[in-house]
């Protein structure tokens, strides 16, 4: 995967987030404060503005820019977490104009580790971790297939993981205030995480 693909990923992600802003808002209305859609849209819109002119020689630098931008525009719980995801991933791919699947795996894993270090969420706490964790495991286990196929499997695992948050009682984040009432609703952050990974798979397929 080269830097152009990474840029395509983020551009696609920004589109997908914008297309799904209403959905994310509604998910966050049911078990939160209705801002996740606007938060993510604001963040990715700011990122998109900076992407076009960004140099294409260092993937880490691109991811760092994405992380810093999300961190300073998204806010809420998702801002620091998504910011950390990209900043930690950026460290792994620092200086590289191209990354192979090993680096991709390490970057995603570093991102997850950063999210869990910052937010202290465990699997099944009903958060974005429940989309990213399965995605990483699927990607890791996708041997003997193309990178594009592996990314697609990761995206599918993220989708299923987000869906699997529906019956869960939230133990982290704003949804946890609702207790049992949080069950029956899909977690907004897990949903946006899936959308991110889906965009990555789409960029990786081209």
């Amino acid at each position, binding site marked *: 995967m080269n830097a152009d693909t990474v840029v395509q990923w983020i551009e696609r992600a920004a589109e997908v987030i914008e297309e799904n802003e209403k959905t994310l808002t509604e998910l966050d209305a049911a078990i939160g404060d209705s801002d996740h859609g606007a938060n993510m849209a604001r963040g990715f819109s700011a990122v998109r503005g900076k992407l076009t002119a960004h140099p294409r020689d260092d993937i880490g630098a691109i991811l760092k820019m994405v992380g810093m931008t999300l*961190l*300073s525009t*998204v*806010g809420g719980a998702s801002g620091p977490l998504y910011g950390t995801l990209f900043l930690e991933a950026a460290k792994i791919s620092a200086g590289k104009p191209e990354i192979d699947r090993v680096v991709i795996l390490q970057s995603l894993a570093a991102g997850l580790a950063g999210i869990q270090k910052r937010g202290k969420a465990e699997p099944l706490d009903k958060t974005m971790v429940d989309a990213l964790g399965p995605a990483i495991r699927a990607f890791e286990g996708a041997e003997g297939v193309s990178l594009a196929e592996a990314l697609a499997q990761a995206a599918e695992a993220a989708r299923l993981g987000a869906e699997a948050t529906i019956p869960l009682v939230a133990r982290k984040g*704003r949804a946890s205030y609702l207790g049992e009432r949080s069950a029956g609703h899909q977690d907004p952050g897990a949903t946006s995480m899936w959308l991110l990974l889906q965009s990555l798979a789409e960029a990786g397929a081209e």
Partner: protein
Amino acid sequence: MKKLLNAPSDLVKEALAGMALAHPGLLRVHVDPAFLVRADAPVRGKVAVLSGGGSGHEPLHGGFVGRGMLDAACPGAVFTSPTPDQILEATRAVDGGAGVVHIVKNYTGDVMNFEMAGELARDLGITTETVLVNDDVAVENSLYTAGRRGVGATVLVEKICGAAAEAGRALADVAALGRRVNEHGRSMGIALSPCTVPHAGKPSFELGPDEMEVGIGIHGEPGRRRAKLEPADRITEMLMHPILDDLPFQAGKDVLLFVNGLGATPLLELYVVFRKAHEIAAARGLRVVRSLVGPYITSLEMAGVSITLLQVDEEMVRYWDAPVHTAALRWGV
């Protein structure tokens, strides 16, 4: 719910511009990143007190910027925690060389953004202390939740810390005092009707004509449970008893009783609740020595009320009484 606004994404920015125009001698507004500071910031040699959070809770926090309370307030988007760069820039703007207290309401986003800002401030050589506010008794503080929410006690912590800082107290003392206020404050709220976040276009939940949400927060999310609407006196009991039992508040103690409007509840109704809450507190053997009634920490246009009871000591009362000059609270000046 219909709103008075232009583009939703300009709401916070335009409101800040309005605050700057309405209170020119009191505060200054920085646009990007967005924050407000007291007009005379930085006050050299004084511990600075800073808070922030999503917009939509006004007057919290921007309405509490000024002498004797907050040096700075960082407003995020509606119901959205501010970002580390906002908090960092505001911290730098008010740092008087004696350290900065960050008053942080216990929400995952607020905590993380302030944490990251604190790390950045430390890198710049600014010492910060965090006072976490988590006074809401509606939520269990357990391994299975994100902890208790910071609600009404935030106002009290900001006032008392602000006064202590104004009196020249050291950073560690101001922070310790703030934590003591938080530890002795308990709150709970109910909603009669929801609010609508501008971007969302519709309320996050619907209530029937004879329903209320019990154990409500200030971000428009549903409460702990739905219940049948009751008379005001019964609702006041439903709020006061968990509050009283949680600390627990003991007979013979002095308290500050704060009845807060969540946005759309008329002052008439807040005073009806205050009357009953005062009676319940007195029946518990508490002496209500100070009071606060009004919409001080709101949730847009939510109709509802929250009660905060603070067990006070002489020092807290002294700092509560100390002069304050902000848009929303003013006495002694």
